């Protein structure tokens, strides 16, 4: 017997999904069943270790690595948008955010609470660029155990969270040029803003959300109609 046939037959029946004996898969559960469930932080940390080593395979540079982490987060954002909206108090009447501010509030409050158990620390609009928003997290959970090697000091692994944010924006119909994560703990945050506070929050991270021009155009039209 050759090895390939052995490995395929070991799965028992059709390849792909394997069903538990009581025929209840994870898809048969009520979506709200895990609403208040908590996940072990250590379990996530070890999973994240593997996700990063996976993303690091054959990667050319740090920009590439951040892009891959971003791509890992993107589908999560799409799904979370649906899940979180379906869990609001009145799911049938709830609609997705249609304006920028409610969308960002949704991300900073609902999404952040769901993922990290607390809201994001600050939300700002860029003074120089109308399409750019800044979302601050003083201590990103994904970076809690990470010490960057010196040659990678420019990297911020919260690029994964940036991918989730980008997914939510995309799913809600707000196309983005990019969502990126940058460390601002070491130096003062540019543009004055809230100030870096390097001593207090060495891991402080800003998520730069850059919307596409058409989104801003639509926002302006909606603003005129509404006001």
């Amino acid at each position, binding site marked *: 017997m050759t090895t390939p046939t052995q490995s395929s037959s070991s799965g028992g029946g059709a390849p792909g999904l394997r069903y538990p004996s009581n025929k209840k898969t994870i898809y048969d559960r009520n979506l709200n069943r895990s609403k208040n469930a908590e996940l072990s932080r*250590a379990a996530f*940390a*070890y999973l*994240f*270790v593997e996700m*990063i*080593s996976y993303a690091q395979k054959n990667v050319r540079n740090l920009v590439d690595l951040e892009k891959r982490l971003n791509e890992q987060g993107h589908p999560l954002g799409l799904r979370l948008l649906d899940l979180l909206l379906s869990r609001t108090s009145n799911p049938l009447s709830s609609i997705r955010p249609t304006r920028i501010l409610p969308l960002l509030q949704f991300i900073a409050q609902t999404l952040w609470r769901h993922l990290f158990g607390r809201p994001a620390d600050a939300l700002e609009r860029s003074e120089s660029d109308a399409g750019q928003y800044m979302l601050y997290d003083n201590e990103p959970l994904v970076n809690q*155990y*990470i*010490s*960057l*090697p010196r040659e*990678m000091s420019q990297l911020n*692994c919260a690029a994964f969270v940036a991918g989730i944010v980008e997914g939510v924006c995309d799913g809600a119909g707000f196309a983005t040029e990019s969502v990126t994560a940058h460390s601002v703990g070491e130096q003062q945050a540019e543009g004055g803003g809230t100030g870096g506070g390097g001593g207090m929050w060495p891991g402080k991270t800003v998520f730069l959300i850059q919307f596409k021009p058409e989104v801003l155009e639509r926002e302006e039209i909606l603003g005129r109609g509404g006001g």
Partner: protein
Amino acid sequence: MLVVFALFIISKAGGLIYNREFHTGLSKLSSNDYLMLAGSFHGMHAITKQLCPAPPTPNVQPASAAGLAPSPFSSRPTGIEVLESSHFRAQCFQTLTGTKFLLFTEPQQPNIDSIMRKIYDLYADFVMKNPFYTVEMPIRCEKFDRGLDGFVKVRS
């Protein structure tokens, strides 16, 4: 008052993967000497394990760990746990995976077990959960350093 002189971490192959001095009190050695010291300690640790004069007493373990699942490690003799000299005391803790923590303190230092426990916690968090750390390699993790600093500074 907490006086911790130094901390060594020795990999399961006997290499020195972390070496940190907190408080002067031990002689300054070259990094090469520290490496050799770690290697020879690794060997001595193995010998002390072999010299165990009494056959392991299996009835001691179940009594202390009642209710826990039987561990395959229970009857294995341990190597050096505490070494005393007139100037310092060295406490050695070996994890189940063979990494050794060697902590040098003043001879009369109390509560070394809890200090060791805390160091092990920091190691498990900031070294083993760090995606950029390769096991068995020298430890260069800023957050681990900072955690140790905070801990030793707070306690002293």
